[in-house]
């Protein structure tokens, strides 16, 4: 059924049964005339409204989405709207990164007695959506704007001098592991991969395995992703600063038990952006040698030397890293550098910040077209704890279809990003794992930024005892203010 051509736009409302749906009824009983565009979905509580319903509607042609619940403190279920308020505010700040105007989504509170207020909300929201006009579909304007994007910004200077970990006390680390290994089932670390220029995860089970452990800027993988699989057993893990935050987050979510995990920490001096390294190395047959000095790595392939200075080839996340040393460790080897500065806006996010909404839509349309739906991003994510039960792979609930269009692909990234809101430590494994190089980390970074702004600078993965902001609430939120309806 189409909307009334030329007269109406597509506006979806999610109203809680107890207050706002009653308020809409009250408006009806009072014969309070309203625009006809809105279609109301009745839900038990605003807390039932998963942010993903809203994104789903917006990606599939809704021109506006309105959520309305009981006034704060008035929730029929006592606290549902407090949770909703936090989650919906994060969503509101997330939408623009997809290229969706956040004015197309609003949430408000209307009680069952406030028929007049409801009329005002509907009239005001409808006229707002009409002023914005029909929502552009993803991909519609992609070609025209493609030239505007894709020019890689210059990476910001790192907050500290990055190095190659040449002088890191690897031997002390090996000693420490040797000492603890008898009590542990396994210690997770890194070893040389299929050649000397790459590393893969190492699972140390026997003393002789310890010597396979390597350290350096090639240790890009986040070993925390394997930890929950060892749940119930005693496991050791060697971490960089960023990996430690993932471990903390897993502890916070009860996915591993503190007493089962032994954390071996080494101070990290930065890791290489393997995508660019591989690009420069090109196709090769043999790695002749890998030599580290203080400032970079020289990789010789097929007799040809390639130098990778850390200052130029480090991962973007390492440039903005403020936690090079583990925030939580049982055995810490080596000293930790102090980083005075605050983390800057990550490079990927800065790139999107500089774009208009149109450009962002074009950006995602063109980039997501390349997505293979291989889900490497998901599998590499240490916080993707659903494992075999990801909502992308099931029909119950049936969030995603099998169609290979841009909307579906971007919707999956949105699911991932919103599920990670308040949980993502920014380790960047999703983006690193992407075989087609889509800068999907930016979506996670945007949720992280929203959470940090809204909840007094909260950054995930620093305190295992913290209440994650989206699993809690304040009756009076400091940074979330009700918007007026005029």
């Amino acid at each position, binding site marked *: 059924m189409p909307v009334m051509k030329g007269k109406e736009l597509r506006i979806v409302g999610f109203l809680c049964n107890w207050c706002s*749906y009653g308020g809409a009824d009250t408006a009806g009983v009072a014969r*309070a005339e309203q625009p006809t565009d809105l279609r109301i979905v009745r839900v*038990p509580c605003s807390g039932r409204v998963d942010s993903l319903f809203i994104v789903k509607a917006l990606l599939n042609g809704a021109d506006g989405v309105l959520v309305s619940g009981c006034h704060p403190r008035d929730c029929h279920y006592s606290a*549902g709207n407090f949770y909703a308020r936090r989650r919906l505010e994060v969503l509101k700040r997330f939408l623009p990164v997809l290229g969706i105007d956040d004015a197309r989504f609003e949430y408000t509170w209307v009680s069952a007695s406030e028929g007049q207020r409801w009329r005002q909300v509907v009239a005001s929201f409808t006229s707002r959506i009409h002023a914005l006009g029909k929502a552009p579909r993803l991909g519609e304007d992609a070609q025209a704007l493609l030239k505007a994007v894709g020019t890689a910004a210059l990476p910001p200077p790192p907050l500290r001098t990055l190095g190659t970990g040449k002088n890191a006390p690897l031997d002390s680390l090996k000693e420490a592991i040797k000492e603890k290994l008898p009590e542990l089932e396994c210690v997770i670390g890194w070893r040389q991969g299929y050649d000397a220029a790459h590393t893969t995860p190492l699972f140390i089970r026997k003393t002789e395995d310890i010597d396979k452990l390597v350290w350096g800027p090639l240790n890009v993988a986040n070993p925390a992703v394997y930890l929950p699989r060892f749940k119930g057993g005693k496991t050791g893990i060697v971490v960089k600063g960023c990996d430690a935050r993932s471990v903390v987050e897993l502890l916070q979510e009860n996915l591993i038990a503190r007493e089962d995990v032994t954390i071996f920490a080494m101070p990290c001096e930065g890791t290489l952006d393997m995508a660019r390294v591989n690009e420069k190395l090109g196709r090769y047959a043999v790695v002749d040698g890998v030599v580290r000095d203080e400032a970079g790595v020289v990789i010789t392939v097929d007799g040809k030397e390639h130098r990778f200075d850390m200052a130029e080839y480090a991962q973007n996340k390492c440039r903005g890293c403020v936690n090079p040393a583990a925030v939580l460790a049982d055995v810490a080897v080596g000293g930790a550098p102090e980083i005075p500065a605050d983390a800057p806006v990550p490079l990927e996010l800065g790139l999107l910040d500089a774009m208009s909404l149109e450009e962002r839509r074009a950006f995602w349309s063109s980039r997501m077209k390349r997505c293979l739906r291989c889900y490497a991003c998901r599998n590499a994510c240490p916080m993707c704890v659903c494992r075999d039960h990801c*909502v992308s792979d099931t029909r119950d609930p049936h*969030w995603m279809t099998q169609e290979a269009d841009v909307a579906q692909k971007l919707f999956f990234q949105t699911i991932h990003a919103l599920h990670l809101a308040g949980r993502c430590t920014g380790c960047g494994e999703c983006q690193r794992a992407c075989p087609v190089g889509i800068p999907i980390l930016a979506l996670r970074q945007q949720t992280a930024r929203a959470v940090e702004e809204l909840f007094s600078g909260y950054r995930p993965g620093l305190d295992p005892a913290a209440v994650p902001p989206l699993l809690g609430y304040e009756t009076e939120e400091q940074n979330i203010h009700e918007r007026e309806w005029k």
Partner: protein
Amino acid sequence: MRIGVFVCHCGSNIAGTVNCAEVAELAKSFPDVVYADDPMYTCAEPGQAAIEAAVREHGLDGVVVASCSPRMHETTFRRTVERAGLNRYMFEMANIREHVSWIGKDREANTNKAAELVEMAVAKLRRDRPLTAKTFDVVKRVLIVGGGVAGIQAALDCAEGGVPVVLVERESTIGGKMAKLDKTFPTVDCSACILGPKMVDVAQHPGITLYACSEIEEVSGYVGNFSVKIRRRATYVDWKKCTGCGMCGEKCPSKKTPDAFNEFTGATTAINIPFPQAIPKKAVINARHCRQLTKGKCGVCAKVCPSGAVDYAMRDNFVTEEVGCIIAATGYDLMDWTIYREYGGGAYPDVITALQYERLLSASGPTGGRIARPSDGREPQTVVFIQCVGSRDNSVGRPHCSGFCCMYTAKQAILTKDHLPLSHSYVFYMDIRAPGKMYDEFSRRAVEEYGAEYIRGRVSAVYPDGLGQYVVMGADTLLGEPVEIKADMVVLAVGIEAAKGASALAEKLCISYDNCGFFMESHVKLKPVETTTAGVFLAGVCQGAKDIPTSVAQGSAAAAKALGLFARDKLENDPQTAQVDIRRCVGCGKCVRCCPFGAVAETEIRGEKKAQIIETVCQGCGLCASTCPQGAVQLAHSTDNQILAEVNALCR
């Protein structure tokens, strides 16, 4: 699936602006719809019979009714489909009256919108599953919060009906505001004489457990099985030993303790029994003014107490009561009238509230029933009553009428003349609201027989004239001229608000309250006693302004609701609860952390942590469902797939 759609005309309510026949015709093209009709009145007896017939004739296994709000008739139609042999949850409603026909006049747009709402309902119905309620036991006890006249009536009615009652009162005696009144309108009979016997009944009834000086600390559970933690504040007197002889009060040296019962019109002792008819008649120490408790020196009451009941070391303690339902009867307090600077804002001793005046009139009050000016004890010759101080005044955020002030002002004018035959009373009023039985006659008597002078208009200022009197400046809006009266006393009919702490109690009970703290009833007209939380009922002024007869009536009504609830041995839960697919659950506990009711428990299945819903505790809000990233928790009848179906019907 075979779905039938019924698009109701509702007379001309819907058909006036929606082409119902066309909507029904369009509905036939929606997936799985095999039958569609547009009856005149679907909710009427023939309309419901037609649904039943269609279900049987066309072998329908789901029904959509497009008519009024589901908040109106969902239950009605669920019963209809149940009679036709379907599960009651194989039914959806599309609200095409309140949300369509009544709010827009464009017939084409309305018809289109109605059809879309039907399409959404069909899309959801296709994913509906039969649900069955579970039954659970009921604890046949009732907890009543507040021992004013409404709470007392509810307690007595419940106890007489054979249901044990737990009555919790914040003050040291029950009786509430009524116990403070001298006389009551329209009969001018003694308040203590009609309330006193009821209070005694409460004390003597074997079915009533009374906790005075107590407050609700915590409420958990659900209808039929509430668990309520009660804080019993330290009284410093062991009530088991106290005989209420009053010796302690006589000897207490701290004689300047503010007397809350007398509305601070007089002083009392630090240990006292608030008034002679108090129930329970037990002494309480006011810790803030007791010399022993503040300075550690005195101990007089402990020495004189013949039963050794005084215990300075007493601390608050807690009891937990299991009850099946809760009646809130917390009453009211006066709003803070000192914001009215034009009336002195509390600075002039002879400008007092009507409740204070009531204490001056009362034989058990601080003056023994003599009307005396608080400033010099002189009997006033001219008394000015100002009505609506903090009622019907949007400028101070009090739009409501406090209901009973017109009547008690008339009563106080009459009593003033009775006490002081030479006195003269003026009443500044906005409107006289006297709709009760014998009320208008009563207020006319104040004017016609007792010579009270009623002036229609507001008072703009009250100020002392420096000679011991007060100048009251106002306007007579009927004559259209200013009025100036020299008064000895000014009595303010101060507007009411919900009792202090009412909103905190509402939050514990999960019920709504309005701007002034009054509790929200479930339906303004049809469910004035129920709340949106099952098993929580309202009685008296806590729900909104009402006088004594209405409070008593609502107390009885709430008791009837409680007795009705307990007439059944088992209750049925609402099967629209959360459910966990344990295969998908990874045991991360996010749902456990969020659930506002503690309805999600952690359990272990084959050594793995999983979430488990306690179905009788689950209220069906669905917060857990929107929290679970795997979609392992789903809310029955509002599953992700059902809401997605509605969204997908709209956006594609």
